[in-house]
């Protein structure tokens, strides 16, 4: 009786803390100035979601949630790897268009018109 209430209260507190962490990470996804920042924040969101699933598994008692957490981790890893490859290919294609920007200024220090164009292309994906 006592033990169940202790675990339940701890699970509630953990859910609150995790939702705070989730909100902070969502802020980075929205505000992150560059694409890799957003990818990193999405990776962190997957980690926090795994934590959520674990806490909900404790609260409800369905231990099948562990398998869901494992498969979510697999999907998150694959998504991050694919996004990393995408960052490389995008930088290579943009530096092929502009041979002078050797280290690949990625729209951060570009001029107004080209920056707008780059943003439109990013949004159209």
């Amino acid at each position: 009786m006592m033990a169940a209430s202790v675990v339940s209260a701890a699970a509630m507190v953990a859910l609150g803390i995790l939702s705070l962490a989730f909100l902070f990470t969502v802020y980075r996804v929205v505000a992150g100035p560059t694409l890799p920042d957003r990818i990193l924040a999405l990776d962190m969101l997957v980690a926090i979601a795994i934590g959520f699933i674990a806490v909900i598994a404790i609260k409800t008692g369905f231990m099948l949630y562990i398998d869901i957490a494992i498969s979510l981790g697999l999907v998150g890893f694959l998504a991050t790897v694919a996004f990393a490859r995408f960052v490389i290919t995008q930088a290579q294609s943009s530096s092929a268009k502009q041979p002078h920007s050797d280290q690949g200024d990625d729209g951060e220090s570009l001029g107004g018109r080209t920056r707008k164009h780059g943003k439109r292309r990013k949004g159209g994906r």
Partner: protein
Amino acid sequence: MDLVWAIVVAVILIAGALSSLIAAIGIVRLPDLYSRMHAASKAGTVGSGLLLLAVGIHSQDLSILARALAGFVFFALTAPIAAHLLARAAHEAGYKLTEPSVRDELLLQRRIAKRGYRKKG
């Protein structure tokens, strides 16, 4: 005895959640992609790993504990790989280190390699 296990599970739950919160605060507060990566990959792995461990201990079942540990090991193996791959890709794409950082060994090394190649050719 039951109460002891419950307290252990509760402590691990709170510790894991706080670890995730620390990772999220690091992601928001740190100035740079490469320094945010420290917070996200290390503290985030510890956070979700501790929460999975709490599930395994709470179930009092060896098979579920083994599955939770397998999930934790899988996550601990893949998170550094993903972070390193993303850092490598971002550095190759030309995302600079933030202002107070004084040294970028990878950039220096690549420049040296390029110069040597040109000298030979």
